[in-house]
């Protein structure tokens, strides 16, 4: 029998075509696995009562209302200070890559972004969306209304990867656009020179934004599963290279690990949350990262 946790698996989510359902399933699966309300302990104020549903913490049950009505109601709280979240999506051609012909890096990122959007809207946090390739392409101003969820998902569902990317420049533009301190959640494969990108991240941090960097790579980019003679082509600049894959695997894995280590180290210094992901990983890792960040802000 299917359980909610199943929806944390990318191969299962891939079978659900509607993005809103995807987001819903991911979040429900995630919350079910937590065994506790993610909102407990946040600095919030009472806003209204609602009916008790399984999954709510029993200690939130309002026993006075129960005494009066003989029904379970829980106190609903409202964040004292809302977090404005921005989902920043890389639309480069390389984000459309998939080796197993399942979820592309962009699909994975969109599913994740949708889930986060779903989560945030339910938290009453305003969420906005930015997409970029060589510059900012789409922009959706942050709102906390429930209708915002539909807007964001609608935009996400129509995103297509295209052309080359300039992550550093785009992030610099983002930094310039955002006036208030926000939570910037970046989804990118970071396939560019790391120094300018890191500088742009420093700039975002300098402006007071909290940054979560979701570094999404394809499973093949992390494991290099090729064998024999292969000719590899970069989809963005069409450069080609002929090589013996089996002989090169060790070298490649060393390189990619060094690349990730660089980002991990630099982000740690800049207090940027760096989340290395690949398209075979479950979504809960990303969601946990968001919640930890949210807690810190709260």
């Amino acid at each position: 029998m299917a359980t909610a946790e199943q929806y944390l698996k990318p191969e299962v989510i891939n079978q659900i075509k509607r993005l809103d359902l995807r987001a819903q399933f991911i979040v429900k699966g995630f919350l079910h696995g937590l065994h506790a309300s993610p909102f407990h302990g946040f600095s919030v104020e009472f806003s209204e009562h609602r009916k008790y549903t399984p999954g709510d913490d029993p200690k939130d049950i309002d026993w006075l209302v129960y005494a009066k009505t003989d029904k379970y109601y829980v106190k609903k709280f409202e964040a004292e200070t809302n977090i404005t979240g921005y989902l920043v999506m890389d639309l480069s051609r390389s984000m459309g890559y998939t080796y197993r012909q399942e979820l592309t890096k962009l699909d994975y990122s969109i599913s994740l972004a949708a889930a986060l959007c779903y989560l945030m809207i339910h938290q009453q946090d305003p969420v906005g969306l930015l997409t970029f390739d060589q510059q900012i392409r789409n922009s959706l101003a942050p709102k906390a209304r429930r209708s915002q969820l539909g807007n964001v998902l609608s935009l996400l569902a129509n995103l297509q990867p295209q052309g080359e990317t300039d992550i550093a420049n785009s992030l610099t533009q983002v930094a310039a656009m955002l006036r208030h301190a926000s939570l910037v959640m970046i989804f990118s494969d970071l396939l560019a020179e790391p120094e300018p990108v890191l500088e742009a991240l420093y700039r975002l941090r300098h402006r007071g934004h909290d940054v979560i960097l979701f570094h999404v790579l394809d499973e093949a980019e992390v494991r290099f599963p090729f064998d024999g003679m292969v000719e590899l082509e970069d989809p963005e600049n069409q450069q080609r290279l002929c090589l013996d894959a089996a002989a090169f695997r060790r070298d490649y894995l060393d390189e990619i690990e060094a690349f990730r280590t660089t980002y991990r180290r630099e982000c740690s210094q800049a207090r940027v949350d760096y989340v290395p992901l690949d398209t075979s990983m479950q979504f809960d890792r990303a969601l946990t990262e968001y919640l930890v960040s949210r807690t810190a802000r709260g």
Partner: protein
Amino acid sequence: MTFVNLSLLGGTALIALPIVLHLIMRQKPKRLEFPALRFIQKRSDVNRRRLLLRHILLLLLRAAAIALLACALARPSIHFSGALGSQEAPVAAALVFDTAPRMEYRHENLSRLQSARELGLWLLAQLPSQSQIAVLDTRLGPGTFQVDRGAAKQRIERLQTVAHSQPLPRALDEALRLVGQSELERKEVYVFSDLARGAWPADSVEALQSRLKEVPHVGIYVIDVGVKQPVNYSLGELRLSGQVLSNRSSLRVETELSHTGPAGDRTVELYLLDNKGNDRKRSEQSYALDGDQSQQVEFHVGSLGIGTHQGFVRIVGQDGLACDDTRYFSVEVKPAWKVLVAAPDPPEQTALFLFQALAPTEYQRRGEARFDCHLIGLSELSRRPLDEYAAVCLLDPTPLEPAEWKKLADFAADGHGVAVFLGRNARPAESFNTPVAQDLLAGKLLRQARAPDGDVFLAPGDYQHPILSEFRRLAGAVPWQAFPVFRYWEIDAPRSGVGVVVPYSDRRPALLERPLGKGRALMMTTPVSDRPDRDPWNLLPVGQAWPFGILVHGMMLYLVGSGDQQLNYYAGQTAVLQLDPQQSRSTYQLFAPGEDGFPLSADLTRHLLVISATDQAGNYRVQAGGTTGVDRGFSVNLAPEQTELRRVAEEDLDKVFGPYDYRVARTRQQIERDFSEGRVGRELFSLLILMTALILAAEHFVANRFYRQ
């Protein structure tokens, strides 16, 4: 190296094929989209070099596989020796048969020689027509090519073992000399041997190898007709207590009963021949032997009358090799040797130790003393005629008159023995250094040496001298240290011809010998006449003095010449009998074992009888003058190496041939195979095909790893 299909070697040109394919048909790699190419580009140069190396490795493997295949199909072969010409070309062949007595060893109802004969006849039929064939055995003498194949066949059929067989390398040397003279291009030597160790001695290897160097292009085939695990009982060489004995002493016969094979029991008997030549059993002993074990056998025979006595020791029962089951012996028994002992006064006291050692009172009473000792004072020496004595002993002599020295020197030169034991009476020393005294003595006296601490004693280096022969069995177990020498005479450097028989532990001479004419003189530099309670020069005769007894016995036997007459020989040796000048005759009858007598002339000037026809083991008898005349005898035995069945080790056989090639075969199939390899050469086809398969496997492995999809 030769090729059966030389033209197929042209197939090696096909190695061009993989090279062309490599150049024009490179495999297309699988094209894939991969965004993270930037991480690969960093190390692409190293990768490209690795790729190139793999390509070259693959190319080489493929080219090697094709070249090896072409080479294998051309059927190359290599020759182990210099065999030349086609397989049907006439050959100069020498067939060498080992005819040592051990070739009589029977296995599966065939003697080794019979097996060799069968194989030899078969081999003879295999040789190409017009071949020159020589058949040699291990007798002494040069070999020749047989007139025709029929003569060779007849020669093989008439082969017999000989009692004295020369080593196989020597016969092989002769065979190589013979085939080396042939004008035929192909030369082959076949050696039929049981590969016994005794047939391949290391000392005859050098001549063989230099011959092989002279005639290098000869195929040598050793055909093994031996039995790998023989079962046999054998008697070793007989050791007699003496070949010339006193009629008062008994004969001791020792030997080893050896056994190869599983455990078993055997009885050993000793027979003596009577006057008519009939054998009479005198003793027998039974032994139980485990596998590959040997046991000491010892017989004592007493009551032998004066004259020549012959006999044999044999193992009862049959085994594979009969000729080593019987060993023969001859001894001559003479009256007890008369020995004159001259000692200082009172002679009964001063000569007591020597007298008791040579002729103990108990032995004298029983009439068993080996020596008939007469004791006189030194002063009586000049008056006593010496002719009737075989030896004279001077105990601690005082300075003698020149006439006495001369008398003793003449006595020794006449074929007798003189022993001088120097002691405290040898003063002044100059009187012993006069020329007339030095005609007898072995060296000049220098001074008396003293060793009061008792740390000097007799210390024989080895026991090879006949005087010390009885000590050989004991070797290091003789307690010479228990008999210290406190004083002795230092001798000037021994002159030429003088030998030190026994030194002291400080390396100075203790007992010296000097040949004088037909006889000999011994000089001991410390006396054996001192009583232990009167400041003795040594303690040699004191306590458990058995070494002293054995030593003086050895000295006397040496002086009376008991070991001079050799009566026991190996087959092939020349026997020499010394004749009594009183009874010497010009013609004698020699009776070889199992044969009628034939006349033999004596060397009357030297009073010797020389017999060279000793090629048969057994007891030989020499007679002249009927029943009252001369009756002498001697025995001939097979040399131990002639009946040694232990096989030569492979590495020892390799040493015999050194760097030169040879083949060993046992069966006809092996011989045929060796022929084929020797004449045509060893085919390399299978080896090359195997190598091709290995290279193809390597190519497959590398390619699979390389182009894995």
